[in-house]
């Protein structure tokens, strides 16, 4: 069953609606959101409330429900954020 989520980009305050299938993982959500926003390459994480979501976890196992709002955060790695010519 498709789950409809809102993902908020904490780097710029914008949001997008995303539909996720049960066989998709948190990794898939992060990559899709990054591609939609055309984010600079680098590491990003996704959180729900005060919980960091594990990349490998499937959407249902992550406890995600319809209308959940997730927040995407650039994960500073001091040396791994590339220039703007390298995209997500």
């Amino acid at each position: 069953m498709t789950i409809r989520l809102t993902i908020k980009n904490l780097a710029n305050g914008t949001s997008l609606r995303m539909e996720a299938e049960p066989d998709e993982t948190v990794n898939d959500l992060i990559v899709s959101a990054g591609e939609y926003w055309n984010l600079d390459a680098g590491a990003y994480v996704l959180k729900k409330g005060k919980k960091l979501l594990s990349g490998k976890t499937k959407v249902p196992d992550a406890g995600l429900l319809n209308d959940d709002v997730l927040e995407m955060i650039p994960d500073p790695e001091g040396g791994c954020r590339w220039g703007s010519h390298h995209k997500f």
Partner: protein
Amino acid sequence: MDTVSAGFEDKDRYDRQRRITWVDQDAIRSSNVLVAGAGALGNEVVKNLVLAGFKRITVVDMDDIVLSNLNRCMFFTDSDVKKGMKSEIVAERASLLAPDVEIVPIVGRIQDVDIEGFDIALGCLDNILARMDLNATTCYYGIPYIDGATDGMRGKVHVILPGRPCLQCVSNRTHVKTMETRHTCTGNSSFTPHLASDVTTTAIVAAMQVRETMKIISGHPELCITNVTYYDGTLCDMFTVEADIDPTCPNHGRES
């Protein structure tokens, strides 16, 4: 009845710090600390460690000093540019801040350092691969690891204690992709990006790293961040998020 000298409280370098109830100054004095990286975070971290009373510090870095380091590295001067190695200069200059501090500089990669025997490690590194390596090694030896990172006005601190989620537990495909893009299959760096970096964010992240170190060394890990704190200097915002151990993470196989 006790007898004290007038002004005795100002004759102890650490008197004011001892007034923080959970601080164990003797434990801080006797601990053996590893600092991986002597760049922006490493400068600030070593400064804070020395002022806080840590006496045995090893600092590792393979790089020399360039002019663009000087906006955020308190121990480097113009005369060091292209002449000094970061770890050696940090050790030399930080030693001036407190008597009887022993700072051992190692010019080399953190991956090549034997970390067994250290009480705690602080990551002040500039790439995911080195972080993951130190993360795995500290997990293997059960050494607490305080990882700091910055990117412009953003920063984070991750406190990794035995039995708690490590860097690999919270990594995802974007971390792997970044590692793959940055490094060749031989492990050599293929491209070194130039990051935005400022002294204010650096100072805040380094301060948090050393404060968490003081808690752990003082025997109060329960006061530590659980598990990652993110800082946004543009908004002056800070929040902490919890994470779970990834049951497939190889770094936790030895724990029970």
